[in-house]
């Protein structure tokens, strides 16, 4: 049984068919990249995975459990965390507060009016751990809204990490970034994948990032799966070159 | 008994017509600019008072023609000087600003024309009953209904077939795209605001003729109009029309059977709609959130 299993999923908006018959299986510890030209349905697919939409047909199973119709916050508690194409953070709160909120929610304290001393110490330790993993320790006291774009993205990933995810969904993690920032984020993602052994599914436009990081690549085109394979296989795939790489070049 | 019911349903339709005029204007402004215009009732009252002042010189019908436009011009002046600054900001601020304007309007009309209600003279032929058997329905009510029907029809034609109207509808759905296509959004919003106030002003003149002038007369229409919009479905002007009429009729019918609850019935309707169909009868999915 695969860790994340998507079977024949489709999504229509009125008469518009965004996705048809998309299937894929992600193994534990794998880093899967989803690529495709604009309008291929990548973001819609992501929104189905994270519970933003319910598919019109097909099923999604996570760790052997059917999550097709599960609302977003319940998927989070099962261990599916996501980041967004446009960075979504709590801009007026500090980096530490951003992560603390995620840590507290993940620890089941979202409704707690009060926490004991030892619980607070544990949570604080967890916050420091996550901040260190995301490389944000030295910026913890600053409001996220004041940070550079790359650091905001790192803070968003840190919040996702704070949820102790077993599956991390990253929607274009390097969107809108310069080379330096792209490099930093790519390194962060690689650390999460190789050192923290996280299973990661990401959408990405930057082919350098994709070929550097991915174990396997799924290519979407016009709402269906065009090809799937290792980076080498995809680079050699003629249909992909014709439909996608050719167009991009 | 049955004639009593007919009377009250008929009254309900006429009352509903006022709600429709008021709610349509509010709805237009809300849909395109994201602003709840609390001062809308103030504009309605102002329309009535302007007509009252004018009617001495041009008669009721002349005032009916002129007063709404004068109210709309004042509305545009306020949009240009004050409301325009708040587009794109937290809706809290436009709510507070129009709230303040509503206070100023109410106080202003009271200062100029007094707190006491003033009767508005209507032409004698309109004050007659429709017929001997329908002695309880004056021609003026029919006249009101006809005017409202005409104006609503005109508005829908304008929205469907004119350049401005099509842009307003498109802007309601996706203002950014409309702006990206090179449409002057500022002008569009002003025009739209002006049309909204025009409808309120017209409502004020008609209501003044049926009831009387009173600085707080707009207040009586504000809540029903909110509810008409919510019941009909935010984002749907057709829904607003239906919502206004439904509330008017429900109020009329309740007056027969349970007079003390005649004001409460519309709130019950709103609660039921929010329970069963949260987006309203004709609301688009997502427009309410």
């Amino acid at each position: 049984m695969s860790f994340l299993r998507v079977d024949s999923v489709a999504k229509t908006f009125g008469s518009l068919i965004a996705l048809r018959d998309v299937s894929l299986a992600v193994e534990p510890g794998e880093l899967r990249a989803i690529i495709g030209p604009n309008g291929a349905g990548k973001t819609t697919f992501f929104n189905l995975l994270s519970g933003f939409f319910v598919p019109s047909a097909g099923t999604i199973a996570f760790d052997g459990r059917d999550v097709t119709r599960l609302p977003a916050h319940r998927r989070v508690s099962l261990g599916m965390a996501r980041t967004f194409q446009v960075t979504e953070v709590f801009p007026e709160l500090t980096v530490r507060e951003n992560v603390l909120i995620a840590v507290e929610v993940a620890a089941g304290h979202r409704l707690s009016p009060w926490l004991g001393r030892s619980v607070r110490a544990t949570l604080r330790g967890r916050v420091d751990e996550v901040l260190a993993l995301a490389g944000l320790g030295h910026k913890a006291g600053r409001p996220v809204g004041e940070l550079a774009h790359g650091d905001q993205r790192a803070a968003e990933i840190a919040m996702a990490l704070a949820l102790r995810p077993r599956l991390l969904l990253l929607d274009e993690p390097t969107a809108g970034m310069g080379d330096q920032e792209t490099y930093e984020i790519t390194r962060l993602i690689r650390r999460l994948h190789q050192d923290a052994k996280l299973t990661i599914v990401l959408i990405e436009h930057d082919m350098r990032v994709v070929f550097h990081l991915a174990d396997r690549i799924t290519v979407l085109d016009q709402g269906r799966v065009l090809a799937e394979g290792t980076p080498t296989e995809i680079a050699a795939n003629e249909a992909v070159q014709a439909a996608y790489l050719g167009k991009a070049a | 008994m049955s004639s009593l019911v007919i009377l009250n349903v008929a009254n309900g339709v006429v009352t509903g017509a006022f709600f429709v005029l008021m709610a349509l204007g509010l709805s237009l402004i809300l849909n395109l600019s994201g602003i709840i215009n609390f001062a809308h009732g103030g504009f309605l009252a102002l329309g009535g008072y302007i007509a009252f002042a004018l009617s001495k010189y041009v008669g009721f019908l002349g005032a009916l023609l002129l007063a709404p436009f004068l109210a709309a011009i004042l509305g545009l002046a306020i949009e240009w000087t004050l409301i325009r600054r708040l587009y794109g900001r937290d809706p809290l601020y436009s709510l507070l600003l129009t709230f303040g304007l509503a206070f100023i309007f109410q106080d202003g009309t009271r200062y100029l024309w007094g707190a006491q209600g003033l009767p508005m003279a209507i032409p004698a032929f309109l004050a007659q009953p429709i017929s001997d058997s329908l002695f309880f329905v004056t021609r003026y009510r029919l006249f009101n209904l006809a005017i409202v029907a005409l104006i609503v029809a005109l508005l829908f034609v304008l929205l469907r077939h004119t350049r401005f109207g099509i842009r307003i509808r498109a802007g309601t759905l996706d203002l950014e795209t409309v702006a990206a296509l090179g449409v002057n959004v500022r002008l569009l919003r002003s025009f739209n605001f002006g049309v909204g106030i025009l409808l309120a002003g017209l409502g004020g003149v008609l209501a003044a003729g049926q009831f009387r002038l009173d600085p707080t007369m707009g207040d009586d229409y504000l809540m029903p109009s909110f509810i008409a919009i919510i019941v009909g479905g935010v984002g749907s002007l057709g829904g607003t029309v239906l919502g206004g009429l439904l509330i008017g009729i429900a109020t009329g019918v309740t007056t027969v059977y349970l007079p003390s609850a005649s004001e409460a019935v519309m709130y019950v309707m709103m609660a039921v709609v929010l329970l069963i169909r949260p987006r309203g009868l004709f609301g688009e999915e997502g427009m309410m959130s």
Partner: protein
Amino acid sequence: MSAVSLPWPKQLSHRPLWVAVIWLALLAAPYWMPLAGGYTALGTRVLVFGLAAMSLNFLLGFTGVLSFGHAAYFGLGAYGTGLVLKFLAPSTPLALVLGMLLGGVAGALLGALIVRRRGVYFAMVTIAFGQVFYYIAFRWHSVTGGDDGLRGFHRQPVDLGFATIDIVNNTIAFYYFVLGCFAVAVGVMAFLLRSPFGRTLLAIRENERRARYLGIPIEQHIWLAFVVSCLFMALAGGLDALLNNFADPHEIHYSRSGDLVIMAVMGGMRSFWGPLLGAAIFVVLEDYVSSLTQNWMSFIGLLFVVVVLLFPRGFLGFLQQERKV
């Protein structure tokens, strides 16, 4: 426009010195207010509306939810308290608690209907539902006294077991009684806002989508914040009824909801204590200006316009911004 993108100022409430100054000023108010031309009942009124504005701000400033119908819960507290004293039992604490519960239960029921609405639509639905209670107070003459308001009840001495506080005739004692209630309510709200639950509310205010994808059931949390806010709003209403020995239907009208919002905004809605400042300014101005002119409404309308255009972050926000520059 540029003012909007500026970061909000740091909260004053995080500075212990300021908090100490505020409490000292409140504790000593009956002694310094007369020197400044005020009187004790005015100070009590400031506390009552300060509590109301701070309760509203629990939603408005800290959860980011635009409730415009909060006068209704103030009114429910006032009428609930008055009715208990008039018909049920001559006990001030019991009346206050039941009045609070009335507001809280109404808030819980209506809140459940409206938590899915957002922004201006939330404002519209809350204001419309708020008017229901205005009409009930206005129409149900036999119980509520209709347009004349609810009369015929008096606040009762508070029996602490070992001593009895005469809050009936001694206005200064009553001031301290209200200050005690204020302290408890404000303390609970401050405590909640510093808790993990409070931080989820800030999260919802800051970015609802992000909050949802952290696993926070937004609707449940907004509902809880709404109920907390309504409870303390009703307490404020109850205290107002005790202050005047009278419950006024006009305090429930939606225009009063606007007053409460402007108090919170005028003081500074990102600051815990800002709404108290706003309420103080509003109540004192109301007292002073309405004694000078008939046109209090124009004045207050103008105040709305000025605050929105010149002080959108409230006076506290404005002062701090100036200091930074």
